[in-house]
């Protein structure tokens, strides 16, 4: 176990050093107050930590709730759609047309319908996540070889057993892959939604600092938002590895 783990940690250390070095060089070259050096950024992050924390948790809450809602809705629908020819012929074109539409354009409508607080953001991000997970899981269900299903049937397994012991394990990796990809999109959508409406969350914090020309404060917000993405991504990675240990 040890050598690969050490190598992995070494890899991350190298990555952090690499990113910070690139950032530092760019900051020196650009020489603009909008792009502080890493040292300055860490300093403002520490200095602004107190007031940042509630914004961070507001944003984290919105993303996490949305990821959960989107996934919980998408997974069963994906399984049903992939298994039922009738439903699939009915809904596949709908899905095909709706999936590529950037859900973020619906933001103005959602703001009118749901106000300025958590609801429109959660609805918007849930929608985004929903379609990503739906498409990935539906394809994964379809990729299950017929022979796998036949094998469990030959053992006397019920329909439920087919789901529980074949379909669910087979699609678990797809759920997590789409979630990990989805985190990036989800946070991007969150940023736009928070920046445009309301007075809470990191998106608001960043754009408010920008309009006040308080660049260090703005940058602290940007780092916080980046951290949110990294933490969620790593979290899914860990959970996936725990749940799909056999791979």
């Amino acid at each position, binding site marked *: 176990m040890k050598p690969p783990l050490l190598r992995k940690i070494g890899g991350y250390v190298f990555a952090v050093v690499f990113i910070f070095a690139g950032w530092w060089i760019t900051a020196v070259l650009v020489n603009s107050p909008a792009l502080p050096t890493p040292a300055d950024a860490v300093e403002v992050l520490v200095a602004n930590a107190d007031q940042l924390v509630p914004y961070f948790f507001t944003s984290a809450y919105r993303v996490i709730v949305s990821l959960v809602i989107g996934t919980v809705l998408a997974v069963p629908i994906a399984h049903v759609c992939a298994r039922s020819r009738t439903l699939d012929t009915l809904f596949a074109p709908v899905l095909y047309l709706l999936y590529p539409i950037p859900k973020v354009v619906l933001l103005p409508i959602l703001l009118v319908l749901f106000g300025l607080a958590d609801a429109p953001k959660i609805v918007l991000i849930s929608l985004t996540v929903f379609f990503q997970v739906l498409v990935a899981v539906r394809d994964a269900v379809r990729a299950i070889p017929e022979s796998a299903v036949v094998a469990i*049937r*030959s*053992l*006397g397994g019920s329909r439920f057993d087919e789901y529980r*012991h074949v379909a669910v394990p087979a699609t678990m990796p797809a759920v997590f892959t789409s979630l990990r990809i989805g985190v990036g999109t989800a946070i991007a959508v969150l940023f736009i939604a928070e920046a445009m409406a309301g007075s809470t969350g990191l998106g608001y914090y960043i754009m408010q600092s920008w309009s006040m020309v308080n660049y260090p404060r703005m940058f602290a917000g940007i780092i916080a938002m980046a951290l949110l993405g990294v933490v969620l991504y790593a979290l899914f990675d860990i959970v996936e590895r725990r749940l799909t240990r*056999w791979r």
Partner: protein
Amino acid sequence: MGESDIMVSIQHLSKSFGETEVLRDVNIDVKRGEVVVVLGPSGSGKSTMLRCINLLEKPTGGHIYIEGEEITGPNTDVDKLREHVGMVFQQFNLFPHLSAKKNVMLAQRKVLKRSNEEAERIALEQLARVGLADRADFLPDALSGGQQQRVAIARALAMDPHVMLFDEATSALDPELVRGVLDVMRSLAEAGMTMVVVTHEMGFAREVADRVIFMEEGVIVEEGSPSEVFDNPKNDRTKDFLGHIK
């Protein structure tokens, strides 16, 4: 020969997929303890015939009886039937997230409602029987194809089947792994298991089969003891097929 000596009786079985007729008037009686090997070119309907025996395919016509009970009637309890009919496929299809032992335990627990202890005991017995006692805690990915197929056989055996169906069980295996699987099948036959085996392994058919059936285009073309079919085939198509294989 009494009724009870017939394990599987296939009478006038036919099967069509839409317009395509895959099986036509197939008649086979398999006696208890008999090993019947079914040969034939791909597309001859032998796999479909096998799948009809546990209703993975629904026959279009004819009757199938297992231990005297008709399974092609309207009131067949399919799950009950499948408990007594074990099947091994070309693709092993183990549960990739479960160890070899857990693979063998799962259906025992869920379908036969055996206790965890009993299922585990039987799983270890069956894994030992296929020569994999020391691989009980391995995940399928860590096993060779031949070992995975032997786990699949153990998984089917753990359900106490009265008859075992083998659908090209060695066709997906590398040549050097085929032997271990055939050895397990041979020892099963020697232990008196009733078996219907679809295979391309002529050596196995010759040595182990009590009876060989040659199918082509959905009908039984020739049938007899291995020496009759292999050394003295009457039908030109059989001769042709055996000539190609050798």
